[in-house]
């Protein structure tokens, strides 16, 4: 039982990270109607920036987080302006290829700047794990622990989701985003600055990516290398689709469910086929319910 609860906590932990990444995907997809393939690599850049601030400059982790968030926000806006904006009228194929190109561009730039050997991310929060439960069975002590970083990860994920929901529903910019997401042309006619709205979306998405990158490396102990972000990025996209792309609670739900399924699958089915498992879910979801758990039905216009 304790073992199961441990898996559950770890699943929630990784699931929260997926959720934060998925929020970024879902926002961009909802507003700009494009799959930002480079999102996973923005995560990596965010983690690297935080690492630099922490390890090279020796500053406090909070400053590192701020630095990474600011850096990634700028990066996100730059990517959008330089690579995606000129292609707003182009086919989705062209946009997707550009996004893939951008993803590889970031990876290779990171490799040139920081080298391809892996780095070990410093712990951003100190403190001993809290022992929730302890039993002795057949001479083996089993403990259920919750480390501070786990609490931080889950809490930040939850706070981010609530803040984002409020932002989308209560602010003027949020309203503009919803509007652009519904109909770009109509939004423009209503006097909404579409380009600005999309830029803001990218900025928020990238800021979230920076947070996600730090959480990924700090609470899941991912080694920091130029390819750190690619697999979690794809998995988080799976989570976004799972929850219903474009929907913020959906991304959250999808992320956490995916984390749980992945971890429990690894523990009870097969640790060898864990990745196949996750991708299998994506395929099944897309075939059975393409709009995801909480997604809206999209009508095709002729």
């Amino acid at each position, binding site marked *: 039982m304790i073992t199961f609860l441990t898996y559950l906590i770890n699943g929630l932990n990784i699931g929260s990270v997926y959720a934060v990444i998925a929020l970024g995907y879902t926002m961009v997809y909802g507003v700009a109607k494009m*799959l930002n393939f480079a999102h996973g690599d923005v995560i990596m850049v965010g983690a690297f920036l935080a690492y630099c601030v922490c390890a090279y400059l020796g500053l406090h982790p909070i400053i590192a987080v701020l630095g990474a968030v600011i850096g990634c926000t700028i990066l996100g806006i730059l990517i959008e302006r330089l690579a995606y904006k000129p292609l707003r*009228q182009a086919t989705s194929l062209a946009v*997707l290829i550009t996004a893939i190109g951008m993803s*590889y561009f970031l990876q290779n730039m990171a*490799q040139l700047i920081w080298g391809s050997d892996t780095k070990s991310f410093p712990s951003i929060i100190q403190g001993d794990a809290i022992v929730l439960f302890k039993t002795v069975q057949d001479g083996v002590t089993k403990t259920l622990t919750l480390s501070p970083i786990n609490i931080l990860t889950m809490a930040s994920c939850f706070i981010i989701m609530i803040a984002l929901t409020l932002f989308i529903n209560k602010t003027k910019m949020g309203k503009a985003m919803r509007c652009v997401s519904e109909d770009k042309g109509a939004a423009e006619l209503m006097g909404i600055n579409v380009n600005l709205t999309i830029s803001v979306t990218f900025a928020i998405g990238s800021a979230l990516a920076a947070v996600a990158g730090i959480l990924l490396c700090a609470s899941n102990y991912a080694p920091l290398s130029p390819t750190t972000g690619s697999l979690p990025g794809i998995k988080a996209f*799976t989570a976004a*689709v799972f929850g219903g792309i474009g929907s913020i609670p959906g991304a959250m739900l999808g992320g956490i469910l995916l984390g749980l399924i992945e971890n429990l699958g690894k523990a009870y089915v097969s640790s060898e086929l864990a990745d196949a498992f996750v991708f299998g879910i994506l395929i099944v979801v897309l075939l059975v319910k393409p709009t995801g758990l909480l997604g809206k039905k999209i009508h095709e216009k002729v």
Partner: protein
Amino acid sequence: MNQKHKMTITHLFTHALEICESFLRQPRIMAEKIYQKHKMTITHLFTYALVICAYFACQSMIKAEKMTLSLEGQLVPICAYIVLAVSLNLTVGISGELSLGHAGFMYVGAITGVIASMWMRYAFTEESAFFLFFENMNIDFALVRMLISLIVAGVFAGIVGFIIGIPVLRLRGDYLAIVTLAFGEIIRNIMTCLYVAVNKKTGALNFTFNNSDIPSKDFKLFIKGPTGITGNSPKIATFVIGIGLVLFTLLIVQNLINSRTGRAIKACRDNRIAAESMGLNVTKYKMIAFVTSACLAGMAGALYAANFSSVVPSKFSIDTSILILVFVVLGGLGNILGSVISATVLTLLPELLREFDDYRMLVYVVVLILTMLITNSPIVKSLIGAIKEGAKKLFARKNTENGANS
């Protein structure tokens, strides 16, 4: 000779020239017409000619011992990459679906191809009727093994392509891309758990997902899960077979594009709804392109695997799929000749510029992004147009200046 005579002669001469020209003009116009009408066929023929010429050039260099070992070692992989690029171009360029799982089909082909060739190596001893049949016909048995393994690889990759195609082709755009990616990774993940051994005496195959199930006696383990394919030597892939596969691929793909089916595939790409309302079965045509592409990718995989005694599964990861996509996009979407050239150049270039290897992928992706921006962005397009106009004007002015000066 006075001035008048001179005039007449010049006159006559000009006339004669004109007459000659009119005679010449007729064929020229006709040639122009033929070219316009059969533009595609001519480009296609040119592609074949180029490949064949390249083949003879390489062969003569090898004969003359002028070719470096490093280039010679790359000939077969280049052929495999050309086939991969051309086949991916069929899906991405002609059918308009972005597939990111091409390396997965390549892997299926590599595995099944190697299984077929290893089975034949041990199942048919030198006394068997099958072996003697080819021996009598003076055909090298390695060649037979290679060809059969290519066919097997193609068939299996095609079947996998069909199975994957059923769900995948119901999706569109970004979803399709990400699902092909997912399938590619699933194939790789499953294949990394597969162990295959062959009985050295009877040729019986033993498949398992658990390494310890393999009886060690008499069995040769040649697909070792995570290690990938090992001990697949001596290699049976040759440059001749590689070029043969390239020509075969070109034949299939180019004829498909030119056919009624090909036009239907393009119609489905350009406007799905219009094509549907014209009564075209969109899924069917997309499936034809997808399966053909998977089939050819499988063959390329078999060729590739037969050339290296050891192939690791990480070779068939998403990175390879992207690399092939780079070949296709830089060669021009839908442009077969372009794929052939870009696959060749982009495979050779990094070897020639080993010192700059760190920058290779970076340069590729920058060029990839720029290509996309240039060909698709109205702003950049108009910018380039303006530059062209400006250049034209500049040249025109220069020319008139030159003319005025002279």
